[in-house]
Each structure stands twice: as C-alpha cells, then as structure tokens.
C-alpha cells in the first residue's frame, strides 16, 4: 500500500441527474434516441500542496440496476403491465465519452456497455505512468483541472438507446456511477 499522492480529486457533474428516454413513436423504437452531451464531467486533480510527481488518477464508469431482485443483466423495472416480450437488457445502452483531446480510451466513439452490471468501464486507466496535463493524448492522468486544461479535464457523455421491436413495454431505470479515483 502506498501513501496518498494527490491533495484533491474532485468530479463535477453538469447536466441533468435524471435523463429520460421516452419511446412513443415507431420511428423512435427503430431509430433510437440519442442524447448528446447529456452529461458533462469536470475533473479536478490537484497536488499543489505536496507537489508529489506520482499524483495520478483514473476514471471509471459503473452501471447499476439498483435492485438485488433484478437479474444482473437487466434494467430495473419500475412499472410494467405487459406480459409479452423480454425485459430490456442493460447492453441496449451505448455511450460515447469524449473531449477535444480525445483522451478517453474508447476513442470518442459510441460503444455498447458491458452486459453485466458493475463491470468497470475504464475511461482513463491506471497505467502506472503519469501523462501530464497539456499532452493532449490518450489517457492524460496527471494533475489538472478544466480551467487550465479544458480539453483534457472535461468529458462529454452521450447516450444512445435503440430498443428495436418486441421488448416488454414499461418504465425501466439504470444508474450510471462516474468514479474518479486517485491512483496509489
């Protein structure tokens, strides 16, 4: 176990903490709904007090379905009267995580989230190497903040869901947890 490396890690959320996808037309079912920039994350990591050069961080997304009674592959059902069709699975959701320097590992493209809840989706990984702010390359993980390095420390999250036809009608919910952690 190592000692603390950074003085502060902080993640700010800009945007709605509840994002609604309502499917009420056939075209929405077939074409899906995309909500671009629905979530903006502002990452601040500071080491100005102890000036430790090993201050690094990682950013991971976890998807939870909020209920132990729900299969770990499914959305949590809030309401449904239907008996036909399967419950939607969590891998219906596509995410795109990006910023202007394209630092996320996913390459600024939509990707399907893992099919099982709590599987980590690593956006910025713990490589053991510090890539300092201002590098403007993949996996920048040194100290920095959106004020001084907006293009690396701000992340836009886009969401896309294409239900297709045949799923059980109802109201469903998922929780996305964005976790910023100091690397020890």
């Amino acid at each position, binding site marked *: *176990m*190592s*000692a*603390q490396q*950074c003085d*502060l*890690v*902080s*993640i*700010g*959320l800009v*945007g*709605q*903490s*509840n*994002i*609604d*996808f*309502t*499917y*009420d*037309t*056939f075209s929405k*079912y*077939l074409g899906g709904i995309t909500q671009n920039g*629905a*979530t903006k*994350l502002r990452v601040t990591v500071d080491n100005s007090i102890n000036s430790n050069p090993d201050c690094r961080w990682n950013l991971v997304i976890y998807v939870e379905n909020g209920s132990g009674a729900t299969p770990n592959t499914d*959305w949590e059902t*809030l309401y449904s009267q*239907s*008996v*036909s*069709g399967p419950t*939607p699975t969590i891998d219906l*959701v596509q995410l795109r995580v990006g910023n202007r320097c394209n630092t996320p590992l996913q390459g600024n493209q939509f990707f399907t989230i893992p099919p099982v809840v709590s599987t980590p989706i690593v956006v910025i990984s713990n490589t053991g190497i510090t890539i300092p702010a201002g590098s403007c390359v993949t996996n920048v993980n040194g100290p920095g903040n959106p004020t001084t390095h907006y293009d690396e420390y701000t992340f836009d*999250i886009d*969401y896309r*869901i294409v*239900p297709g*036809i*045949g*799923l*059980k*009608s*109802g*109201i*469903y*919910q*998922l*929780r*996305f*947890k*964005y*976790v*910023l*952690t*100091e690397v*020890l």
Partner: protein
Amino acid sequence: MRTTRLLTVAGLAMLTSTAAFAQLKDEKDVTITMDLQPILQLNMSTPNQIDFTFDDINEYYGGITKYGATILKVSSTVNWDLYAIARSNGNVGAGFWDQQIRYGTGGSGGATNRLPLSLLELRQTTVNANATAATGAFADYSTAFPAVASPAGSNSIYVDPANVGTPPSAANKYIAGHAGTTATGADGVAGGSYLTAGALTSDYYYSIDYRIVPGLPSIFPMAFAADGTTAEDLVSANGAGSYAQPGVYTMYVQYMILEDQ
C-alpha cells in the same frame, strides 16, 4: 497510567496511518429512465362504406365479391393479435343485420328480415402463420371462397352472438395470432411493422376480400356460426320456405388489434 499512555500513542499512530493511506475518491451518479410505451398501429385503407347491390339474377346466384376492398397494415412494438368481428346496432336483434328499409310489403309468409351477420364472408390474402394453438375448424380466413354449390363456413365472419364485442375464442377465426398467450407463433405475432417486414405477404400486411352470396331463393347459404360448422342460412335458422325480405340492410366490421395477453 503508563499503560494508558501507551495505548493512546498506539491509537494516534493508527489514525495517522489510516489518514496517510486514504485513497482520494469522488463520484457522481446519473439515473437513466427508459419509458417503452406500447404502440399498436393498424393502418386501414378502405372505403367508408362497401355497397353490395343485388339487382341482377346472376348476382343472387353467384354473389358479389369485392376484392382487396380493405388493406390492413400493422405496426406494433409488442406481440399482438388481429381479428375481425361483425357488429350491428341490433335493431332487428343481436347477431343480425340492421334493416334500414324494406321494399313494398316485405314479401309473403316466409320472408324474414333476420339476416345473420355471418352471411358476410372474408378472405385474407396472407395466411395466419401464428395460430398453431387454434382448435377450431378454421383458424383464419385464408381459405379460398368456397364454390356456391358447396357451402362451407371457412370464410364466414366471426360474430359475437350477444353483440357485445366478445373476442373470438381458440375455436374461432383470427386474421393474425390467436386466442391465448402460449407463445409467438402459437397464438401471437411478434412485434414488428409492415415498414420493415418487407414483402406484402408478411405477417404485417393483409388484403381483405368480401363476398356475399344471397342464393336463390335468397337464404344466404354461406352463413355459418363462429365455429365454422353450424349452418345459419335462413332455412336452417327459420325453417323451410324462409327467404330474405327485400330491403336495405347494414352492418359493420370492426378490425381489432390488441396486445397478445
């Protein structure tokens, strides 16, 4: 006293150690809610009124057929069933055509205005491919219209005798899907749309033909009960010598689409 001091020092050391190794972490949550509203769309292309005028002896003998008079196109996000049901206002009686006017004195002793709704025949161009759970003589209306000389109930429209709109049972006819919720294929059609299913022969597109054969005398030999086997022509229903009272009669057909449940 010395022991107490040592414990205190040890405790402070542990706290210091814990603080030194605490991993800094922060997190934010976003909740996503998905509302999948069921959509059942039945697009119907049809004249508001379909007239059958019998003013020629050949039309009485051979009947009148209206080919492709109604086109049904389905889009549904859930599994579904589709059926037709014959209805009337019941001014003659439940299960009979409404008589709007009669001509002259209405005919002699055997004349009756109690024309069964089931005298209307339907034919769907696409076979009901999702009805293996059906138990009746005819699962759908896909059989070709029978010859006039060989009356059969293969195409008689479903009638709820009580005229309250009760859906057909497993023993009756559906256009698509069927009674029950066993599974898609057995008694339900999977969600989908004519927009994406492609061919006009898909499970989401139906062309409906109509036929009425009065016969001569006009007893409507093609009228059969919902089971498809019990004759309801005027002689079977009212006895020998019965025939249709001349006049104008109306009824209507309801096409019902509903979630397979």
